[in-house]
């Protein structure tokens, strides 16, 4: 019977680490420095090892969690996200005097939820995972308890999250009513059998599920929470949630819509088409006017969700592989960028206006260089990894015949470079404004190392992407 546990070992490791962090906090004397972050690292390493061991095994636990390669690839992305997030969180926790046990425990629980979401094959378990990860993230958003913005952002995120959860659960209820099951493969076959006669129940079922996912991946017009929550949270948390949540949500999105509900693609693809177009356009256009880098990156994250939707609507195998590769690249890039924002923050100054970055080149040359890499990658400049990721997504769309959507994608990514480059220009070509100048802090070693590693990863993935691309492409065969 223990064989049945195999598929959930990675998330068990992470959960155990989360519990350990909680317990450690309980025994910690006030003010005693305790290495709680490293506990999380241990858990994530355990998860990494078990993920490697599970590769190609196609283990299943309890019939509701399947560790297929697709899920494991996303798990691997999440492990990377987790490790980098732990590293860039350390200075924030230190500086803000956050309750470290709680902080790390929440982060690890939420990671476990994300992993569950990526490997779940039952709608109800997906919902459970969604709630596990979301509840933890809501708290993390407002973890700075004395911050007015933090509380407001957490509340907005929480409330809209709950609101969309209701839609999602309603969709699941209809799926269950329609097919008598919530298990994805049964749902798939039964829905396929009824595919010809799409009654109102089926429309409600698929439509409401779509709404739930669209919220989590911040598709327009379900994106309203994104900029506010991203701005309110400490940058390290924003980095974590903008990448982890997106990866987990897209994994489940692909699993549900491209595998279980694929027979109904004729019905939903047009809707996703519109969502993708609206998301790319709005995210890019509104990003142009932003003055805060955090908000700019929040809108950029919305736009990147649009590119992923573009791959989703294309629906072929290239597209699924492209989603995985894109998620990885996006995760590493965005975490790197938020890592930089996070180390430049001080206790009383967010330092996140674009003008705060003026002359960064002369004060923090390495950070400026790293930021350049990240921004160029987000903008899709070759030879950064972001370029390859975008190329794949657009190619998949054109292959699938979605030429107009690809044109919108290319056009918006062309426009988006405008705001990425504005920051680059600020960093290299402006003298720091003497009056409003706040002294930027020194860079903590651990976070600095995480940032450099992120940059190396995106360079590697840009220059030698073949191996990872092959993995991604191989992982998508046989998703359920």
């Amino acid at each position, binding site marked *: 019977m223990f064989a049945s546990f195999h598929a959930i070992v990675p998330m068990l490791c992470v959960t155990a680490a989360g519990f350990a962090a909680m317990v450690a906090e309980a025994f910690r004397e006030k003010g005693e420095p305790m290495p709680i972050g490293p506990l999380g690292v241990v858990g994530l390493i355990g998860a990494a090892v078990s993920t490697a061991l599970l590769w190609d095994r196609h283990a299943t636990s309890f019939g509701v969690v399947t560790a297929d390669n697709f899920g494991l690839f996303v798990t691997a992305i999440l492990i990377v996200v987790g490790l980098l997030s732990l590293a860039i969180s350390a200075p924030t926790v230190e500086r803000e005097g956050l309750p470290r046990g709680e902080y790390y425990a929440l982060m690890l629980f939420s990671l476990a939820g994300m992993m569950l979401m990526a490997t779940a094959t039952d709608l109800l378990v997906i919902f459970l995972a969604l709630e596990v990860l979301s509840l933890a993230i809501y708290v993390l958003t407002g973890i700075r308890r004395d911050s007015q913005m933090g509380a407001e952002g957490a*509340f*907005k995120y929480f*409330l*809209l999250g709950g*609101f969309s959860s209701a*839609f999602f659960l309603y969709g699941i209820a209809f799926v269950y009513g329609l097919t008598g099951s919530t298990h994805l493969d049964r749902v798939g076959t039964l829905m396929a059998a009824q595919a010809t006669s799409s009654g*109102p129940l089926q*429309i*409600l079922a*698929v*439509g*409401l599920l*779509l*709404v739930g996912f669209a919220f989590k991946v911040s598709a*327009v*017009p*379900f994106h*309203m*929470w994104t900029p*506010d929550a991203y701005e309110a949270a400490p940058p390290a948390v924003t980095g974590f949630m903008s990448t982890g949540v997106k990866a987990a949500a897209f994994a489940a999105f692909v699993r549900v819509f491209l595998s279980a509900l694929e027979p109904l693609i004729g*019905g939903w693809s*047009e809707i996703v088409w*519109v969502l993708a177009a609206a998301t790319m356009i709005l995210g890019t*256009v*509104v*990003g*142009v*006017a932003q003055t805060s880098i955090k908000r700019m990156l929040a809108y950029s994250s919305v736009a990147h969700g649009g590119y992923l939707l573009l791959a989703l609507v294309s629906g072929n*195998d*290239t597209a699924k*592989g492209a989603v995985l590769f894109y998620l990885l690249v996006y995760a590493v890039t965005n975490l790197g960028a938020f890592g930089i924002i996070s180390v430049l923050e001080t206790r009383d100054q967010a330092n996140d206006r674009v003008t705060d970055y003026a002359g960064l080149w*002369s004060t923090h*040359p390495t950070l400026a*260089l790293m930021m350049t890499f990240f921004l160029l990658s987000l903008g899709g*400049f*070759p*030879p950064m990894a972001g370029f390859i990721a975008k190329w*794949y997504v657009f*190619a998949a769309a*054109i*292959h699938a015949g979605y030429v107009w959507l*690809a*044109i919108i994608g*290319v056009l918006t990514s*062309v*426009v988006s*470079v*405008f705001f990425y480059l504005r920051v680059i*220009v600020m960093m*290299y*070509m*402006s*003298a720091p404004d003497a009056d409003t100048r706040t002294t930027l802090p020194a860079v903590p070693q651990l976070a600095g190392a995480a940032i450099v590693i992120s940059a190396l990863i995106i360079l590697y993935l840009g*220059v*030698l*992407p*073949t191996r990872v*691309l*092959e993995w991604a*492409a191989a992982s998508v065969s046989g998703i359920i």
Partner: protein
Amino acid sequence: MLLLIPLLPFIGFLVNASVGRRLSKGTSGGVACAVMLGSFGISLAAVWQLIGLSAESRVIGQTVFSWITSGTFQADFTLRLDPLSSLMILVITGIGSLIHIYSTAYMHGERDADFARYFSYLNLFAAFMLVLVLGSNFLVMFVGWEGVGLCSYLLIGFYYDKKSAADAGKKAFIVNRVGDFGFVLGVLLLWVQFGTIEIQEIARHVAALPVETSFGVLSLATLLLFVGATGKSAQIPLYVWLPDAMEGPTPVSALIHAATMVTAGVYMIGRNAVLFGHTPETLQIVAVVGVATAFFAGTIGLVQHDIKRVLAYSTVSQLGYMFLAMGVGAWGAGIFHLYTHAFFKACLFLGSGAVIHALGGEQDITRMGGLKKDLPITYWTFLIAAIAIAGVPGLAGFFSKDEILFKTFSNGHTVMWVVGVLTSLLTAVYMFRLVFLTFHGERWTPSLAEVHAQAAPAAETSRGASGHDLHAGGHGRDQGGHDGDGHRTGHLHDAPRAMALALIVLAIGSVLAGYIGLPHALGGSNRLEAYLEPSFTAHAEREPGAAAVTEPAGVDHEEPDGAPGQGEGHETGNTATELALMIVSSLIALGGIGTAYYFFLANPSASQRVAQSAGGLRTLLSNKYYVDELYDAVIVQPIKNTSEEALWKRMDAQVIDGAVNGTGWSIRGLSDVLRLLQSGSIRTYAASLLLGAVLVLGMYLWS
């Protein structure tokens, strides 16, 4: 070995970008020049090796690493040296080295950190440009394509504390992005069509297809690629960024905005000659756009007052010639002109840089004059380059421009030929207007009123002239006593040694560069075109099976007008035509110079003598107005009216500039409006979510 060619400048970039700030100017400039010269040396060796091969097998490839392999898609980071790219790398590294050397003197007034920053950008640019021309597939090419755009943007905005420079950078950026948009879509389309992005393989596939007589997929793809080319190479309607790009340091204008980067579009079309050869519809557009740009920019060049802007419009115009050549299928001629143009235009820009340097930042040609005595080296090299570009027989520009015009004529495009010839008249006039106003006549001295007015921006002359006070200030930092007025009245210093060296070498090049392409009509054998020819046909390397299909070298037979193969183009009957055309264009060039002499040199000085009795101030004023009045009244009036009033002010400044800025502003405005939706109110957010849900369900129900 090929890899070293772009790698060396890249290493130079790394050095200057990382530790450059702590190096002395000598060291960082030395490093930058050394890597360029090293790269030039290796290029020479590589080209020597290439020439040693037999004509059919002149290809050296190097796969640096396997870049992307995934499923059916494969793109290696492969560099490919063939006749076409060999010519390009020689131009880039050769002229690039000279401009690096020149820059060590020109930029000497900058702070150490800025000096290193300048050279790091310049080296990075060279590395990307080399990648662009050496790339064997579209993806590698695109790496270079985007990279040079980025560097150009950084260099245009080099004097970032100057608003006009920052704006110019932004404009260049926006316009180039429009072009990139077309380029990416074109490449994607080709990939979907042929399943590969290797340029040679696409050529092989295309060669097996019939020529696309009506507008089809290939035409669309080439048209999209051409949109990319118009952006990078400043053609109608995307040329507007180039004149503004003159806000960058002058050596940058010479290297990037005259000799190399802006020719990337021409190169790209030449690289894909087989593909474009199969789409006559697109070629027609290319030719019309090219010749229209050549003429249009030429007329604007006539009325500019800023020395660099005249040269900028001249560059746009010359690029138009190259596109004309591409459009009529005269690939070799287009590339030939690209190559000669690199010499004389770089020389002209560097010469103008020497003038600006000597005058402490003055760029208005109406405030120059009589510099011949004080700047002899600059004068003579500038004059040689001007003669070359004007198309006087015996110099580089003559051979290449004539080749284009001849091919245009012999391919039956008579109207375009007429416009082309008219443009060469314009070329001669505006170039010699520049020469005469700058170097001949009397030295311009500022009136008392104008000395005071100096403090206020002297914006009446041209958009670019005003901002350069800051630039002058930059030089002033190191050259203490040489303040503006001292420059104007006292003794001027000619180009320092490093600058003089570059000028002289380029001037020699402007004379001699044409002789490797000496046409048959003049007893030459057009060696250059014969050398380049294999690059414009589909090769069957490594695929002997496909040879039978592709060997009948694509372009020749589907261009019934008999474009590029010189075999048929140079029969004895044609030689007479060619000679006749040459005589026509020579006469026109000389006529243009004569016209310029008459209006800008002979008459003004005569009028000046008359007016001398009226006192210095009025002399100068009337002199200036006299020139303008003559200019207006006699011949230039009609051209001026159309070009300055209608074309430049309306078309250029309002419509096209307006479109570019308008796009920027409308996106910005839209952004500001859409931001309001994000009102902060949670109930609005919930309503938007609900609205979304209703839309999703509604769409589902409806479909």
